[in-house]
């Protein structure tokens, strides 16, 4: 039986960032990972470190995202120094493309509200077609303009995951891959995490198992009503630099490929791809960057986002089972730095970061809406 201070269930981006943060602070941490049969949202994502437009309903989400974006360079640097893995993080700002005046006006209105709600911390600029073309010379004629924010950037999510795992091991963490956690329960002052042929004993347990949290959370008095939401992505052959800053659905990787995609599909647990969806993504990409019409798509895939009913994260400490926590979100790349550097310390006993106070599961309970 393995005994540790913390057991983190889930070796994806959320679990790995938390486990890394805890191990780096000197705790004895075990990271349990199901294996390649899991849904693996962390292996299928797009790689944006994104702020603009997030948090329109709950502005503290914008602040939480900005906090993470600010901490990202130090996370990236320390992972490189510790492990030699480079995340390819870049923060040149990002753009959200608009295709009509009306769309520009709505975007400006939303982002203005967000800027006000965050006391001006979130800032942005609206760019007309000419200003946008100065940033992206290949931009299509039908793009009216864009919103630009200095807060946005991107990274290679696979290198990030590898860096977090390597960093975790470097800090003395124990990685336990290979089978699914079946049961979590409290035994006296500690938790017993059971999976096939193995039991892990931990003083505290963090559930970061993505969609798997749905079944694990209730075992320690928590509630994680998560829904899979599929996104499909296409990737092109490698090209010389063409797009030097990310957009919401197009980015050029450090290797030169262009990633396209941002479908949102309610298809249950189907991780596949569908030609009409891929075709639509490709058409939108060509509209944004007409030069892409002649490029080859070399790979496509689908992956399942981990979505709460309102799309915002879920971070909660169990009241009935003190020492048990749940953490899930669909922005594991953007929030990686906040998870490692701010969420992990909270789990280890520091005070709750004020931005995440609203993100408990009680908000999903039936509520009475009082008309304004």
């Amino acid at each position, binding site marked *: 039986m393995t005994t540790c201070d913390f057991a983190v269930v889930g070796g994806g981006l959320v679990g790995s960032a938390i486990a890394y943060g805890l191990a780096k602070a000197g705790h004895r941490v075990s990271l349990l990972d199901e294996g390649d049969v899991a849904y693996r949202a962390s292996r299928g994502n797009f790689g944006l470190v994104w702020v603009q437009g997030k948090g329109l309903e709950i502005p503290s989400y914008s602040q939480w995202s900005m906090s993470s974006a600010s901490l990202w360079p130090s996370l990236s640097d320390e992972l490189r120094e510790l492990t030699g893995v480079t995340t390819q993080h870049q923060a040149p700002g990002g753009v959200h493309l608009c295709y009509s005046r009306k769309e520009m006006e709505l975007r400006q209105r939303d982002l203005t509200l967000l800027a006000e709600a965050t006391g001006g911390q979130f800032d942005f600029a609206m760019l007309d077609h000419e200003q946008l073309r100065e940033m992206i010379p*290949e931009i299509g004629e039908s793009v009216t303009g864009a919103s630009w924010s200095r807060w946005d950037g991107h990274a290679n999510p696979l290198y990030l995951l590898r860096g977090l795992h390597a960093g975790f091991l470097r800090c003395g963490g124990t990685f336990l891959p290979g089978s699914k956690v079946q049961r979590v329960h409290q035994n006296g002052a500690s938790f017993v995490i059971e999976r096939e042929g193995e039991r892990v004993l931990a003083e505290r347990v963090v559930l970061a198992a993505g969609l798997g949290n749905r079944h694990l959370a209730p075992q320690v008095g928590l509630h994680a009503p998560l829904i899979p939401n599929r996104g499909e992505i296409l990737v092109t*052959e*490698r*090209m*010389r630099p*063409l797009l030097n800053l990310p957009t919401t659905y197009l980015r050029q990787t450090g*290797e*030169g490929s262009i990633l396209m995609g941002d479908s949102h599909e309610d298809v249950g647990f189907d991780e596949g791809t569908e030609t009409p969806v891929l075709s639509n993504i490709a058409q939108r990409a060509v509209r944004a960057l007409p*030069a*892409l019409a*002649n*490029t*080859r798509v070399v790979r496509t895939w689908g992956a399942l986002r981990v979505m709460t009913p309102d799309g915002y994260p879920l971070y909660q400490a169990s009241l009935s089972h003190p020492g048990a926590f749940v953490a899930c979100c669909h922005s594991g790349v953007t929030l990686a730095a906040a998870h490692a550097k701010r969420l992990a310390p909270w789990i280890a006993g520091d005070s709750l970061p004020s931005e995440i106070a609203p993100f408990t599961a009680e908000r999903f309970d039936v509520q009475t809406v009082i008309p304004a």
Partner: protein
Amino acid sequence: MFKRLSLPEASAQQTVNVYFDGRQVTAQDGDTIAAALLSAGIDACRTTPVSGSPRGPYCMMGVCFECLIEVNDIPNVQGCQVLVKEGMQIRSQNGARRLG
């Protein structure tokens, strides 16, 4: 240096002239571009996007992507998957492709 198998029907094949980086290469009708380059003693046809090191045809069956070349101005063509045609202009694929 690669040599052709001297099959009787091969010797009866017609020759085709193509150009690699401006140099005339005589191939046989039915050759893939990759086979034509190797038989002409050309074993490097591209440089890699990352380190710029030279690469040439390897698997000859469409899976390794080492034989990328530009054919009549189309970049990133797999040389082992395209047959030679008279007058074809073939160029080295140096680094990642350009767009447009």
